[in-house]
């Protein structure tokens, strides 16, 4: 195919599949999260947004109609702690303050775990740097728009973040060598104690304040008509200044009550707020203080005991913090767990007696609030994004399955289509394998990978088909 023709062909395919689909989901049990449950309800999605929600929705010509009879519709699930779709090491663990690095630079849109998460109802992820540093790298919120490029996955308008880490992980490299270890000791990286972790944070912010002052002075001098030499732009301190100015959220990995309290006090001293405490397994001990500070808490449903700082964890944590007025979400921190956050939410009904709406809120509206995107996602309300999940039964049942997932009104996952196209995908793969194993003389053939019948595992519809 000539280049121009194929470009147009690609554009045409993309246009038909992505732009402005009108979809009506009929006769489903709608769990709005914020406005109760609608039995046998319908939702209209238009131009990427939820346009109508109610017991009936009038037909629209050209609309895709989905029969929701016997099925349940929820908002897209949101994961406040993810390391999926990151290319390369998720930690820049070499230094105790690695705020110069940015997860946004290394988003890998072809990570198959994006698709697997979609298949579990996940639509939005807060993709974080790891926990090897007291101050880690900058973070980003993405929508799981499988098949798009990295920039297209970024959640437009979501405030960027930065990762902090307290407790064991950021201090491990500072330990003295083990008495029984052999070989030359690894060079130690400060800090080696919780006390040093606090110091790293205080010191970095003190530097950030100096940096802020330096630039202010420079700008003032320029305004006065002088010709000063500008200070060096320091990528490490820039995001910390943004934190001070309220332009960047702090997501802090923490476990023990003492370090949770410490961080909030440091933030108070420095004049900023912690946006979310992550893991926060002992948050129940200082829930009062967390609520007063205004931090959100994003925790596990029932992880515990893998480290000593997780030994006092209790699965009642989420319920206890919630009842003290903290906005609580449940997260995954795992490529596997992110596939069934609805089931994790269900655990709060057993551990703490949460209601169905409270439980589901933990993985929908609550993380949306924590990420500052609750005006756009997190519940089924008119005006919000068409991010929806259709389950074959109550999503809080351990027997439920995801059938379809929409993001911005576009269907990104359909279990039926996935099942249908598996055979063809295997066939196409077999053709390539046979070809390779037969090691034939070089030929001019292209493998058969037309768009028709493409299996969702194969991303990249931007590929030009020839």
């Amino acid at each position, binding site marked *: 195919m000539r280049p121009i023709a194929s470009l147009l062909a690609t554009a045409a395919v993309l246009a038909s599949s992505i732009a402005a689909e009108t979809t009506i989901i009929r006769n489903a049990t709608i769990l709005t999260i914020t406005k109760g449950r609608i039995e046998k309800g319908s939702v209209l999605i238009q131009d990427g947004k939820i346009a109508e929600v109610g017991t009936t929705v009038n037909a629209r010509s050209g609309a895709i109609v989905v029969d929701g009879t016997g099925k349940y519709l929820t908002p897209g699930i949101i994961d406040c702690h993810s390391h999926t779709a990151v*290319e390369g*090491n998720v930690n*820049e*663990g070499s230094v105790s303050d690695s705020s110069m690095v940015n997860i946004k630079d290394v988003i890998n849109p072809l990570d198959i775990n994006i698709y697997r998460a979609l298949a579990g109802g996940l639509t939005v992820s807060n993709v974080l*740097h790891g926990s090897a540093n007291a101050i880690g790298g900058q973070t980003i919120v993405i929508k799981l728009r499988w098949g798009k490029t990295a920039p297209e996955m970024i959640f437009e308008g979501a405030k960027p973040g930065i990762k902090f880490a307290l407790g064991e992980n950021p201090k491990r490299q500072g330990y003295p060598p083990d008495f029984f270890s052999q070989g030359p000791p690894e060079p130690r990286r400060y800090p080696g104690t919780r006390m040093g972790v606090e110091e790293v944070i205080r010191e970095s912010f003190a530097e950030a304040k100096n940096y802020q002052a330096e630039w202010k002075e420079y700008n003032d001098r320029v305004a006065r008509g002088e010709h000063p*030499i500008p200070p060096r732009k320091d990528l490490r301190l820039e995001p910390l200044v943004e934190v001070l100015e309220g332009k960047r959220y702090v997501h802090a990995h923490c476990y023990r009550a003492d370090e949770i309290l410490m961080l909030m006090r440091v933030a108070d001293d420095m004049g900023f707020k912690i946006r979310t405490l992550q893991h926060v397994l002992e948050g129940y001990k200082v829930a009062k203080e967390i609520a007063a500070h205004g931090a959100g808490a994003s925790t596990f449903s029932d992880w515990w005991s893998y480290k000593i700082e997780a030994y006092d964890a209790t699965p009642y944590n989420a319920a206890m913090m919630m009842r003290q007025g903290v906005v609580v979400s449940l997260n995954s921190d795992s490529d596997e767990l992110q596939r069934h956050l609805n089931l994790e939410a269900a655990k709060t009904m057993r551990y703490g007696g949460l209601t169905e709406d409270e439980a589901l809120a933990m993985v929908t509206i609550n993380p949306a609030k924590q990420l500052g995107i609750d005006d756009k996602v997190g519940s089924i309300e008119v005006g919000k994004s068409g991010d929806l999940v259709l389950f074959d039964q109550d999503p809080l049942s351990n027997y439920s399955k995801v059938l379809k997932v929409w993001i911005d009104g576009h269907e990104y996952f359909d279990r039926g289509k996935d099942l249908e196209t598996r055979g063809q995908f295997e066939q196409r793969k077999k053709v390539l394998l046979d070809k390779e194993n037969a090691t034939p003389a070089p030929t001019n053939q*292209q*493998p058969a990978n037309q768009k028709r019948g493409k299996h969702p595992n*194969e991303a990249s519809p*931007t590929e030009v088909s020839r």
Partner: protein
Amino acid sequence: MKLACAVAALALPLAVVNGQTPSPVAIKDAHIFTVSGAELPKGTVVLRDGLIEDVGANVTIPADAWIIDGTGLTVCPGFIDGLSTWGIPGAAPVAGGGRPAGAPGATPAAAPAQTTPAPRSNGPEDRPQTHTYERAADLVSPSDHRLEAARAAGFTSAVTFPNQGIFEGLGAIINLAGERGRDMVIMQPIGQQVVIRPGRLSSGFPNSLMGNIAYIRQMYLDLDQYKRAREIYDAHPGGNRRPEYDHYLQALSESPRLLLPAVEEQQIDRMLAFGAELKTPFVLYGLHEGFTRVDQLKQANVPVLVSLKWPEKPKESDPADIPNYRELVLRQRAPSVPGMLSKAQVRFALYSDGIDTAPELRKAVKKAIDAGLGPADAVRALTLSVAEIYGVSDRMGSIDKGKIANLVVMRGDPFEDKTTVEYVFIDGQEMKPSKELQKEHPPGAAGAPHPSENLEGGQN
């Protein structure tokens, strides 16, 4: 004349004929790829004093010329390797940067051992792995034993870079022969090469891909500040502290373009955006998954270098481990990238990516031809295209009057299996191409020379 030719023919196969080629030389009635103009089925080219004096279908041959009968021979501009470490003795092959390919016969991509271990880096201020100031032009030497193999494959020139660190240094375009290292240099600096190196935790920052990217970004911010500080200070020295001299940034400021690695499609996307962000002219190298990004590359108008080290099924693998579909597609389609780029008129050239034997180089190019790259386009991709990308097309890369007399004379069509390289001219001097090195040897055969065995390092 015939006696001189006979003497030359009797010379030891591996001997370099130093400055003994009688000048001028005429290759008569050969099939000539001028590359810049028409293909001449029967033409003549005349070389004098290291330059091309004349080329055409009807050319007057000087009376004092050594005439080579070009019947049955094909003449191309000497091939130019788009990115390599040729000429730098002791340098390991250039790192691919993105996915390590599994080509059989490739030497392992281990970084060369440094003489002293680098101190642990605690951040960008320590300028980790930053060899911006290393200058290929200072390091090249005709004593690099690998050069023989390159010439045996018809290469007369190469873009060559030092190859340690994240910022590897200032590259040069060199000829693959000369009396001394400095004679080899055609132009420098022609760029700064970046290789992503997420090192071990113990070596310090950076330890991740994002660390590398942040560091490169910081370097360019520092460079910007460095330049501005100078400008402002020069204009208004009074009242300002004088800016420090920084030899890393000084070298970085010299480079006319940045080479960024990009093999997989999301890496191509990333580096196209990153290069634009850095506001420096840049070139991408690698490009094996470029078959999904042809339109984007066309739109971005960024030149690219395609690696000839095609991804292949590893020789040793567990039969129960079936490769991913994406990997299978990559292996199938990577060789088609040059053909696709050519048809889309994207500026591209080819590079050896560490392949260092003549038969393998030839086969690698043939693979691209078999996958859709026109034979004449293949020649261009290793000649004029390289010269254009690096800004030396006014002096080399095609057979035109006045250009450097770098030629390869073959029996057979370029890159075909049975084709042999008969003559190589560099700066108008005949460099006898080794017939031995053109033969395929089974691995480990006794006496088979391995071109990358360097017996000595050394400069100039």
